[in-house]
């Protein structure tokens, strides 16, 4: 939901409540005023009638030109005791002159004459049709609400367009921002101090993360680098030991096992260094590389090495995938994918490779189930721990792809792992 929508939505909600309350209060205040005025007039009229009546003057039976009516009758003392002396009510009254009923305000007066009789006087005046008034107020409120809403939306859009633009410039910049990549500087001049602060914060944090990212990259590079010589010392001491003729077979076996582990560590270290170098773009020399040629070059080696698994390989070349990149990195990219296709296969399984001019797709049978695409390209993620596996193979694949503007994706389709490299 956009900020503009949220603002308009909230304002319209608040306005609906405010306008309802206002309409109700307005109606109540109006009615009270009207009733008050009418009651005063009725009281005067009633008093006049009563005074005349008590004086024994002639009381006109018919209303005197106005719509006021009255009606007088004698009531029992019990009735008088049971009712209020003065009572107001709204009622439909039949007006003889018009021959129709109309809403009226009715005042009922009970008084005692000098001779002790109780009289009830009912005076009425036609009144505003409250139903009509309510309806009118309701319709006008709705109309006001709609009109205000339109004004509000227009006003908001205008304000947003004029004032919030720097926010959108900043958001756009953040969206395009890639850590560790070449980013254009943030250009977002504004007079609004909040946005200036926001710009400054964004700039500061991006610089800070660049710094940390760079340090981290350098740290991994330096750490791996510093380990090379100690590793060499360990390996070579074991090499010297292995040449010792007096070793028993068991001792030799143990030493070779340690050496193999050290070899794995060496490989891991080299892969880490390589990742750093790729991320730093330290593979400048590019040439035109054909993935078809590389696949045809490396496939036989893997077929030989994994012959015991009896895996069938089908290579379909419907196009030539050629791209400009460092050849050894291209080889690394493909051999890592090929190796995985063999290592994560099943005995007697199958590997299918499709090459078009825009994509290379390698799929292999597997009994492992789908892998998590968000994890497999992470460093040191192992789906199944294997001896000698560095856990860096797919990270390398992704780093190489990113370096040369290729994309690599994973899917699990019909019991097969499918890796696809696209340009």
């Amino acid at each position, binding site marked *: 939901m956009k900020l503009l929508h949220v603002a308009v939505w909230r304002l319209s909600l608040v306005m609906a409540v405010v306008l309802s309350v206002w309409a109700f209060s307005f109606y109540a205040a109006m009615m009270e005023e009207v009733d008050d005025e009418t009651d005063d007039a009725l009281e005067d009229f009633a008093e006049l009638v009563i005074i005349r009546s008590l004086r024994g003057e002639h009381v006109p039976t018919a209303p005197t030109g106005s719509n006021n009516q009255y009606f007088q009758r004698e009531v029992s003392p019990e009735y008088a005791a049971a009712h209020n002396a003065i009572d107001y009510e709204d009622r439909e009254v039949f007006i003889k002159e018009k021959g129709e009923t109309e809403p009226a305000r009715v005042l009922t007066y009970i008084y005692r004459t000098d001779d002790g009789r109780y009289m009830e006087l009912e005076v009425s005046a036609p009144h505003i049709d409250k139903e009509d008034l309510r309806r009118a107020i309701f319709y006008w409120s709705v109309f006001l609400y709609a009109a205000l809403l339109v004004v509000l939306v227009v006003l908001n859009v205008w304000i947003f367009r004029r004032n919030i633009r720097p926010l959108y410039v900043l958001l756009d910049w953040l969206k395009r921002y890639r850590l560790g990549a070449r980013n254009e500087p943030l250009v977002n001049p504004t007079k609004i101090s909040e946005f200036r602060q926001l710009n400054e914060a964004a700039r500061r944090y991006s610089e800070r993360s660049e710094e940390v990212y760079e340090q981290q990259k350098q740290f991994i590079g330096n750490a791996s*680098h510093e380990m*090379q*010589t100690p*590793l*060499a*010392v*360990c*390996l*070579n*001491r074991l*090499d*010297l030991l*292995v*040449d010792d003729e007096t070793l028993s*077979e068991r001792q*030799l*076996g143990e030493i*070779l096992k340690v050496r*193999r582990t050290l*070899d794995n560590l*060496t*490989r891991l270290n*080299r892969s880490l*260094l390589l990742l750093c*170098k790729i991320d730093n773009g*330290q*593979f400048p*020399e590019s040439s035109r590389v054909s993935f078809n040629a590389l696949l045809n070059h*490396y496939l036989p*080696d*893997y077929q*030989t*090495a*994994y*012959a*015991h*698994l009896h895996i069938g390989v089908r290579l379909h070349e419907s196009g030539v995938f050629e791209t400009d990149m460092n050849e050894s990195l291209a*080889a690394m990219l493909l*051999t890592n994918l*090929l*190796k995985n296709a063999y*290592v994560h296969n099943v005995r007697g399984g199958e590997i299918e490779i499709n090459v078009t001019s825009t994509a290379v797709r390698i799929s292999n049978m597997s009994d492992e189930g789908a892998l998590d695409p968000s994890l497999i390209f992470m460093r040191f993620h192992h789906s199944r721990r*294997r*001896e*000698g*596996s560095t856990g860096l193979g797919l990270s390398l694949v992704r780093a190489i792809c990113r370096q040369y503007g290729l994309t690599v994706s994973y899917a699990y389709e019909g019991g097969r792992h499918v890796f696809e490299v696209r340009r």
Partner: protein
Amino acid sequence: MKILIVEDDRDLREIIAQSLEKERYVVEVAPDYRTAARKLAGYEYDCILLDIMLPDGNGLKLLEEKRKREKKCNVIILSAKDSIEDKVCGLDLGADDYLPKPFHLAELHARLKSVMRRKLRDGEAAVTCGNIAVYPDTFRVEVGGRPVELGRKEYDILLFFMYRVGRLVEKQVLAEAVWGDHIDQADNFDFVYAQMKNLRKRLKEAGATAEIKTVYGFGYKMTEP
């Protein structure tokens, strides 16, 4: 054969020296660039093992020094950097080989032998063991003076062992050396065994005196008669 080891790490320097002395090389060591330059100015060496990251300067400068002084010794660069630029730069400046750290001593010996072979006979020279002679420049193999035809992988395996006579070679190491680093996760080495069987058969038929023995459970070792 006189070799100068230029390496700042004391442990590594000692180990390499020890290993080379066992092979009856005459070994001198230098822990930094200054010592190395002084030694190079004063003495003659057949080969220099050169670490390029030295506490007091880049080892590559020693290569320029060597050229200026018109020294004929060979140079193998030992580097922890393993960067292509260093490698290209080093080889351009006249180094004969480039060995990234960490390496196996067997690998160092093999490279040393390979470099020496080229130096001693100016190229067209054989690596020999018993009556087997391999000519790496023309990919020829002779046993007792008669040519022997080998498959490509068989030849690669033989040459690998010719440079590592008397050393135990693990199947894993052999597979990676002959087939390539990309075979690093193989867990079954039947394919190595199959090639080895063919190679042994060919050598035996040709009457070779040296043989590649199986060290059961570990790998192989080539032995001189």
